């Protein structure tokens, strides 16, 4: 996995795409940050009739998005979204990418600057398997959901669902929905979600002024 690549097709990729598509209004304007080859945007355009834009760093991925006939901008999320004007989108999507950028707080703030709502998907390092690996083996965890060695991983940050909640609150954003993904299924209001979820989808909005 090259370090320049933001988006990785994970085992739950299709499920997560499905969840994201469900959260997005028909005909709305959507920007997908770290859009990979543009498969989510392709669905949003064809199924939801959305006006879409992808942002991606990898050259090969950008070319793949263009190949789908979708608009895309090559940019490094860590350098901010200065090309994207305020409020130019309804929803900003960041799927499996927050833990890979250098400054997650900047990216989250930027998302809610360019769009009113943000959909963020983050892997949950609070999962019991991760915890067990650490306790049992005393080593950085490598699990099915997080299959990277510590020295060769796109995941620069390790965070749990609790951590995300804390950060979002600190940034003055509102969590409108939180959907944990447990063993390949979305389970809203799950018990012990932070122990059981492999990842979680957050719908964030700007705090009402």
């Amino acid at each position: 996995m090259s370090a320049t690549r933001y988006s990785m097709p994970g085992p739950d990729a299709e499920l997560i795409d499905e969840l994201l598509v469900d959260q997005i209004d028909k005909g709305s304007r959507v920007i997908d940050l770290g859009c990979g080859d543009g498969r989510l945007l392709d669905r949003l355009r064809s199924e939801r009739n959305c006006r879409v834009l992808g942002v991606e760093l990898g050259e090969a991925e950008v070319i793949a998005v263009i190949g789908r006939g979708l608009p895309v901008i090559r940019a490094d999320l860590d350098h901010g979204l200065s090309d994207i004007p305020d409020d130019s989108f309804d929803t900003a999507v960041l799927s499996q990418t927050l833990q890979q950028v250098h400054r997650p707080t900047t990216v989250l703030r930027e998302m809610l600057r360019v769009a009113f709502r943000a959909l963020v998907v983050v892997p949950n390092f609070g999962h019991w398997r991760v915890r067990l690996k650490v306790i049992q083996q005393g080593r950085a965890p490598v699990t099915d959901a997080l299959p990277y060695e510590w020295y060769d991983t796109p995941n620069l940050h390790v965070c749990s669902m609790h951590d995300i909640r804390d950060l979002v609150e600190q940034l003055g954003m509102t969590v409108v929905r939180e959907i944990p993904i447990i063993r390949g299924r979305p389970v809203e209001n799950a018990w012990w979600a932070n122990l059981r979820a492999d990842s979680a989808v957050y719908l964030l909005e700007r705090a009402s002024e």
Partner: protein
Amino acid sequence: MLGSPVIERARRPGRRVPVWGLPGQAVAADRRTVWRVGRSVVEPMAIEVSTTDSPDDGSVGIVKTRTVQLFEPPASLTLAGGGKLDAVTVAYETYGTLSPERDNAIFVCHALTGDAHAAGRHGAEADSLGWWNDFVGPGRGLDTDRYFVICANVLGGCQGTTGPGDVSPGSDEPWGLEFPFITVDDIVGVHAALVDHLGIEKLLAVIGGSLGGMQVLEWAARFPDSLGSAIVLASGAKLTARGIAFNAIGRRAILVDPNFHEGDYYLTDEIPRFGLGLARMVAHLTYLSEASIEMKFGRRLQEGDRFAYDLARETEFQVESYLHYQGKRFVERFDANSYLYLTRAMDYFDLAATHGSLLEAFGRSDVRFLVVSYSTDRLFPTSQSREMVSAMVKAGRDTTFLEFESLYGHDAFLIEHDQLAGVVAPFLEQTLESEQRPR
């Protein structure tokens, strides 16, 4: 073959007419004289169709430049700078076949010193290949098996389209600096008239790099309904102060050349070759990147490995020799006055100022935009592309932007064809698809 009802006036067959540079030789008293390679002038040829011989080198084959007269009386071309031209000759070439629906036409805007000859060859000689031959042809970035590609020389140029080197109407002498001021708007106005003349209502795309990219932007802003997509390469909505500065140096070199004679050098024995050559040397340097110059020349000497300690030897280093060669070659094919006019048009270009703001410039159309910049381009740095892209996104346009990592600086769009084709081809395909979709 072009399936449009274009009928051009038959003219005398082309013949080489020596004009200036030969003592005592009078200028051909024909206002349609055009500049050609070498110090002679060729009259435009009347050709009904471009011949596209079966290509054996993968190119579009043998092509010929055609000319057409536009804005003939009673119509005339009013220029943005206030001047007027009664009749304009436009030199152009076309490649590929126009579809019966006339929906597959692409217009190529050339850069500062380009010409209408973008693809194929004019004869058997290899050096007659078009300037974008590797990008325009069967199966190439602009696939001539699918698209009908048009390229025309710019107004004010010296490769067949009306410019300061042509004889001014009602006189026996070339215009020189009496030629009216022209802007990028005027260049685009003439090209749009050519497209209209060819019977094409809406172009699939307009594409161009550098000054060509400025034309693309102006086209999209001014005639938004006449194109489906705009492809802007290594360009910007205005020239930077640094870019203007380099143009100023080039113009200065020409203006102070003792052979310039205030632009009236056409009838003299000499042309301002030193000034024009120097202008090219300076400009050429801005087209290359630090890395590419180092890679290509380093500090290598042209001959041997010892310094000559001789100031008269101006081509001691390879890089010196190369620049001198570029200057010399350029003088053979370009007119100094055209260089003055076109660099000024480039300096003056300011899309936001002309149309109120960038947002307004991009806001009037449904044009799809593809913007490409190159990481080592110092003439049109990526920041300029980003500024445009930001306005395009704000205006709600379908916008694609890509900065290529490149070693080649500004010239990359003329060099790295394959990677460019990799994005342009699918972009065009999508444009064609969306244009053909019933609304």
